[in-house]
């Protein structure tokens, strides 16, 4: 298989406009004859379903929550980037493009990133038109802030609830199309298989999570916008129902999975408090604009923070990276926190935390201003930890937050399965080995509002798509496949809890495939994961029946998929014997301990082809070519 990214010809800045002109259009009267399935109603899925509905397509939209408004995107706090240059501080499309390629440590596809930067400006306009209440200045214009890794203020925000407000904007547009009957909404449905007819994606199999029924849906094209796979680590900042299931089942049907080892660890989360913990809570990185990160200079210093004098504190980010200071990118901030703790200078009971201190900011701009900027975050912190962050520095520690890897897509967002398009966090395309803050919301909405409406039209207009109904044998085969897996889960009747096994998987992933990876740890993970998978299939207990609402069954299905997927993630990490972005191989570092890339051998996208569970997948490489931004060693000194 050769991977063709279908990057349009021409100068970087003109590629997308030219491509838009070159693509075929679907005649307005014909649009309603095409059915498009959109799985997922996060920013990517909701914006896609709404826009496709507005264009006149017949859209079927699916999500696992009880309402499309509850997709995981709702939890995003900090903001969304756009190259508006409203602040006159030197921003431009090119700079956003440049920052994103550099921030991704030169492992993303330039043409996709440029398009993302280009349409970013339209996203803000669209959201404002929908009534998204972005923060404003006194003059009535939109306010911006700077966000991790950027030296310009290009981040738009709605208090600490940007994801919520953007998602509600997209959700409302989606519900408007539901009202207009161009979109049919199917909530509480979980996609469990992709249906291929003549090699093309022509439908999906879902489980109705209320009745347990296995349902079949046919279409002319399928879009997956099912989010990331961070919960393979068990503890993460993702919502507890986030999963890899839809993407993984599509992978098993032939969609290549790209760069699964590119996972992002967010530096500012509330530390783990015990075994019972079900998720980790993010403290938005915008806090690093005003908070200063430090640990005691002395190892094992157990004094409370206010007793440690200034000169005995190590503001290590400011010390090591004078020009970026506390605003270094996430991977750098996370790794440094880990180093400080490994060095015995971590704080809090577990020693697995560093301080994020607002004392100086409160002195400088006052508690009221801090409260206005971050009030809800401070409140959330206090609720969870029972400590007042206005008085005592926050304790923070890195946690899994985002996954850059995902299903491989070409420039048109189509996977290696014709007709299967992948949007948002579920695809791999724009963030390389590390995502910059406030860029995931941008990408989700770019894909849904401004890319897929064009590219899917081209696919539909240029592909012969004979009518297919759910009576086709392929639907029966896929539905039987789903049913068998469900029966198998219920039949194990062992004695181990699903959560217990998931937690154990998470521990393997965090210890061996986490912030610092080595040949040894990855090899160990690759022997531990299949063993745990075997244990699961021999000894898991999944009570209840298949034919009604059964949360144990849902959860078990997701964990079963993770137990297969985790192996691919670890293998990808093992095979990439370089450090880049969030992927840190201890064997590959600079004398100062920074990630050391190996462009000569690893400047490619690793796209894996499924060959069976427990069988080594086949690696395909998409070479990365940098015409505009020349790879250099990232430096934030």
């Amino acid at each position: 298989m050769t991977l063709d990214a279908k990057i349009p010809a021409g100068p970087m800045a003109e590629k997308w406009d030219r491509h838009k002109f070159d693509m075929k259009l679907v005649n307005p009267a014909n649009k309603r004859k095409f059915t498009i399935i959109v799985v997922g109603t996060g920013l990517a899925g909701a914006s896609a379903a709404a826009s496709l509905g507005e264009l006149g397509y017949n859209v079927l939209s699916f999500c696992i929550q009880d309402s499309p408004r509850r997709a995981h995107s709702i939890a995003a706090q900090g903001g969304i980037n756009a190259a508006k240059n409203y602040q006159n501080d030197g921003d431009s499309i090119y700079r956003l493009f440049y920052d994103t390629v550099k921030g991704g440590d030169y492992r993303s596809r330039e043409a996709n990133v440029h398009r993302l930067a280009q349409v970013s400006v339209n996203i803000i306009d669209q959201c404002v038109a929908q009534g998204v209440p972005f923060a404003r200045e006194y003059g009535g214009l939109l306010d911006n802030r700077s966000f991790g890794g950027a030296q310009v203020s290009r981040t738009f925000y709605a208090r600490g609830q940007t994801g919520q407000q953007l998602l509600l904007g997209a959700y409302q547009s989606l519900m408007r199309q539901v009202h207009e009957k161009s979109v049919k909404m199917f909530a509480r449905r979980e996609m469990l298989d992709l249906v291929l007819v003549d090699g093309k994606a022509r439908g999906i199999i879902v489980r109705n999570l209320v009745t347990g029924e296995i349902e079949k849906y046919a279409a002319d094209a399928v879009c997956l916008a099912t989010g990331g796979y961070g919960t393979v680590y068990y503890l993460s900042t993702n919502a507890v129902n986030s999963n890899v299931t839809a993407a993984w089942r599509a992978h098993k049907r032939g969609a290549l999975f790209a760069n699964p080892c590119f996972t992002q660890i967010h530096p500012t989360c509330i530390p783990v408090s015990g075994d019972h913990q079900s998720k980790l809570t993010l403290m938005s990185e915008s806090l690093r604009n005003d908070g200063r990160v430090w640990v005691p200079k002395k190892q094992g210093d157990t004094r409370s923070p206010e007793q440690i004098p200034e000169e005995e504190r190590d503001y290590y980010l400011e010390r090591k990276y004078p020009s970026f200071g506390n605003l270094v990118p996430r991977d750098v901030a996370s790794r440094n926190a880990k180093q400080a703790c490994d060095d015995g200078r971590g704080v809090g009971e577990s020693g697995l935390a560093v301080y994020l201190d607002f004392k100086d900011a409160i002195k400088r701009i006052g508690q009221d201003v801090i409260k206005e900027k971050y009030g809800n975050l401070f409140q959330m912190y206090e609720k969870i930890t029972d400590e007042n962050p206005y008085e005592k520095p926050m304790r923070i520690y890195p946690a899994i937050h985002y996954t850059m890897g995902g299903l491989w897509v070409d420039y048109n967002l189509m996977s290696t399965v014709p007709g299967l398009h992948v949007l948002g966090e579920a695809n791999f395309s724009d963030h390389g080995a590390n995502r910059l803050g406030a860029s995931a919301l941008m990408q989700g909405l770019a894909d849904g509002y401004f890319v897929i409406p064009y590219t899917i039209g081209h696919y539909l207009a240029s592909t012969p798509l004979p009518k297919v109904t759910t009576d086709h044998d392929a639907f029966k085969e896929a539905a039987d496949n789903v049913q068998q897996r469900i029966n198998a889960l219920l039949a194990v009747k062992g004695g181990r809890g699903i959560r217990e096994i998931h937690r154990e998987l998470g521990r393997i992933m965090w210890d061996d495939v986490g912030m610092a990876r080595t040949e040894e740890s990855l090899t160990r993970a690759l022997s531990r994961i299949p063993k745990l998978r075997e244990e699961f299939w021999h000894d898991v207990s999944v009570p209840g029946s298949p034919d009604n609402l059964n949360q144990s069954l849902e959860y078990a299905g997701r964990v079963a998929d993770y137990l297969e997927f985790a192996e691919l993630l670890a293998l990808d990490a093992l095979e990439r014997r370089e450090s880049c972005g969030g992927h840190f191989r201890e064997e590959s570092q600079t004398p100062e301990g920074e990630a050391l890339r190996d462009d000569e051998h690893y400047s490619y996208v690793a796209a894996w082809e499924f060959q069976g569970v427990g069988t080594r997948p086949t690696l395909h490489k998409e070479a990365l070519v940098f015409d505009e931004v020349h790879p250099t060693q990232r430096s934030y000194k």
Partner: protein
Amino acid sequence: MRLNLKIWRQAGPNAAGRLVDYVADSVSTDMSFLEMLDVVNEDLTKKGEESIAFDSDCREGICGTCSLVINGIPHGPDRGTTVCQLHMRRFKDGETVTIEPWRARAFPVLKDLIVDRSAFDRIIAAGGYVSVNCGGAQDGNAIPISKDIADAAMDSAQCIGCGACVAACKNASAHLFMSAKISQLALLPQGQVERQRRVLSMIEQADAEGFGSCSNEGECEAVCPKEIPISNIALMTREYVKAVLAAK
């Protein structure tokens, strides 16, 4: 810590439900309420018994999925807090805690503690938006909006759609939920064009769904995890009256 739990179990929408006793042992004060239930469920699962069905997702107070009535109060005893953010340090050793689903005609129980809130989606579908298609929007800064107005709109827009307001109201009214969206869009210039149509359609839909009317009890405001004030309802009522008069 050890707690005695009385939890509503109901096999399906048409089955009869009842409170069943459980004991939660070795509860730590750092646990969230839902993590305490996770532990109870994990024990049930290991014994091959069906777990207690309850809804949750983000577990940080923003998605609006979690929805438990604890000792008679939607989302439990803490003000401005969803149940996923409620922590066990709020409870005493040996305490008895009753856990029930949202109860309202328009929110039928699906199983145990899970209810069907799709009526809220249909209310939004009836008009809770600005009708703009994607593409062609003018520059974001072309409409200046004063900071005060933007902040007030944001105050209302914070609603997470959890339905606690309905669960707390003796009339099972959806007024606080509706009024939050109506206020947000009535305050902003973008919402002006459809202002009247919006309030009429949304209220009509709420009536059709079987939500009750508002008799100013204020229970909704007291349980709202985002502390959305009932002044929103007053604003909605004015909008409604104006719209009805204009329609005549």
